């Protein structure tokens, strides 16, 4: 073979003569598959105003687990569980749990036609919904709120502690606690601990099994702090290299637990030598970790015990907040479910420090399952927070709901999936 065999011209010609590869499926097969996905069931929104960001139409995949049986379970939930909730006044920490999954079967959305953006008369809409809203508000006073994230406006003399919990069903899921200053002062005898020290005290208190997670914390081995770097020394036979999933869980748990307080984690063998993971090779560089601002979007994940949490989708990062919002509707696997409500169209505007989410039609939170609504709203709020932005909602019928003031920008998010510290402490 001579030296000119692969000159530039030859390469171009070879590429141009690449074999033409045909799809062996018929057009009918492809059409049927799309039909099964329901893509032809959606009407396309038309008549958008010029310059208006395009609405995102949600089309969630059908979920097998919510079948006809789910309807019966939902009836049971209405009859039995809801009264219990009202009595126990504990909706806050259980909003995403059993009732939530059952109520999905009752998610009878009004399937509004998405034809044209209508002019919105606040007074008229509010009047028509008055009776229903009043009833719901009365219920709210008893049943507490459905918010699951931790917001700036509800933290007083408390430290936010976040930890990534692990399950077989999904990757690490972050949960957050408000640790009262009084507890910290008592536990550390008046000295303010570092976050690592706080982890050492709080992590063993969390009963992961009860929350639907595996028994994972505290991490094996020991840690050392070097400024914004954390060093994790792992013992021989540590459990974090049993396969790609266990590595993924481990890395995720490290990021979810320490990402708000440290910039990177250097993982070493117990003797200080570089560690080797079977699927990653030798890790001789520290692993960068992000906290809540990881530039991702949020989905619903169910762990054991039918508990539901908001989590990123395998930590998929996006370059822009617009891309992250667009992908909120995309269920790319069976683990993470879209939190968006079917047929609720919205557009977003990325402002300086705020993402404005405009519902195409007036959105009445009481016309939907409220847990579902909260999941959708918080998935959006958390997605915006992931890019360091707050959220403002436009075109929600109610001005107040579950502690949110929709007339203004929602407060900054400090943590995801709040757990009640008092229940942990017991």
């Amino acid at each position, binding site marked *: *073979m001579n*030296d000119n*065999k*692969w*000159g*530039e011209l030859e*390469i*171009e010609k*070879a*590429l*141009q003569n*690449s*074999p*033409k*590869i*045909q*799809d*062996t*499926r018929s*057009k009918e097969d*492809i*059409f049927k*598959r*799309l*039909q099964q*996905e*329901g*893509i*032809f*069931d*959606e*009407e*396309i*929104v*038309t008549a*958008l105003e010029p310059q208006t960001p*395009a609405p995102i*139409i949600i*089309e969630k995949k059908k979920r097998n687990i919510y079948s006809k049986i789910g309807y019966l379970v939902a009836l049971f939930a209405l009859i039995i569980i809801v009264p219990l909730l009202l009595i126990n006044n504990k909706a806050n920490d259980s909003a995403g749990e059993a009732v939530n999954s059952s109520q999905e079967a009752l998610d009878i959305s009004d*399937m509004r036609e998405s034809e044209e953006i209508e002019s919105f008369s606040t007074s008229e809409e509010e009047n028509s919904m008055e009776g229903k809203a009043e009833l719901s508000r009365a219920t709210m006073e008893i049943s507490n709120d459905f918010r699951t994230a931790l917001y700036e406006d509800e933290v007083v003399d408390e430290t936010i502690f976040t930890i990534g919990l692990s399950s077989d069903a999904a990757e690490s899921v972050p949960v957050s606690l408000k640790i009262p200053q009084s507890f910290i002062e008592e536990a550390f005898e008046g000295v303010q601990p570092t976050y690592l020290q706080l982890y050492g005290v709080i992590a063993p208190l969390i009963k992961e099994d009860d929350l639907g997670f595996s028994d994972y914390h505290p991490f094996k081995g020991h840690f050392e702090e070097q400024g914004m770097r954390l060093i994790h020394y792992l013992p021989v036979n540590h459990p974090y290299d049993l396969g*790609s999933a266990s*590595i*993924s869980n481990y*890395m995720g748990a490290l*990021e979810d637990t320490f990402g708000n307080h440290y910039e990177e984690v250097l993982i070493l063998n117990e003797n200080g030598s570089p560690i080797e993971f079977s*699927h*990653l090779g030798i890790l001789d560089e520290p*692993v*960068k*970790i*992000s906290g809540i601002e990881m*530039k991702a979007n949020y989905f619903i994940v169910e762990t054991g015990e039918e508990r539901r949490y908001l989590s990123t989708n*395998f*930590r*998929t*990062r996006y*370059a822009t907040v617009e891309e992250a919002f667009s992908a909120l509707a995309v269920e*790319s696997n069976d683990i993470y479910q879209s939190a968006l409500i079917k047929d609720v169209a919205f557009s977003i505007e990325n402002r300086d420090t705020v993402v404005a989410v405009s519902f195409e039609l007036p959105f009445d939170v009481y016309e939907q399952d409220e847990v579902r609504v909260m999941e959708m709203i918080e998935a959006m709020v958390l997605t915006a927070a992931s890019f360091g932005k707050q959220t403002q909602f436009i075109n929600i019928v109610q001005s107040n709901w579950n502690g949110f003031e929709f007339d203004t920008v929602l407060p900054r998010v400090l943590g995801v999936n709040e757990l009640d510290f008092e229940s942990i402490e017991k």
Partner: protein
Amino acid sequence: MKDGGSPMNEHIFHRLYDDYHSDVFHFLIYMLKDRATAEDLSHEVYIRAIKAYERFENKSSEKTWLFAIAKNVAIDHFRKQKVRSQYAFDFFDWESEQLIGIDKSPEEISIGNEENVQLYRALDECSGDQKVVIILRFIQQLSIAETAKVLEWSDSKVKTTQHRAIKQLKLLMAQNESEAKLG
């Protein structure tokens, strides 16, 4: 759920299929080098295209618009693949990353002579921007202007990237030959 399907959406599908399916599938299979994945992703392309069709503003041709969607679908696939397999903490920058399909190429690609197979393997070793430009420009035979539209680049960036890609392929193929001679 409404009764019956949307005739408009079905009409869009039929037209996109008739006009572009062959080209889009061809593009995806050279990007992914796996028939099953290309089939899945072509499905995703239709879903995104039908949903976004009303936003298509005729600022570009329908063909480049659809290829842009196909490119994004493929990049998303590589992004997810990397996140899952290697646990990447950083952004997935497709232009600088390698977009490596599976090692075993579809039979149709492998039917060519061994040297051509090496050329496709070398393509995987190029950066993502180089690989995409090569596929669009030479395998799909889009023009500079069409490629620029698909990638939302300037014409000059397409030309520069193409030039560097060909140089890189030439270098990689020369290395392959040297190794073959030594081996």
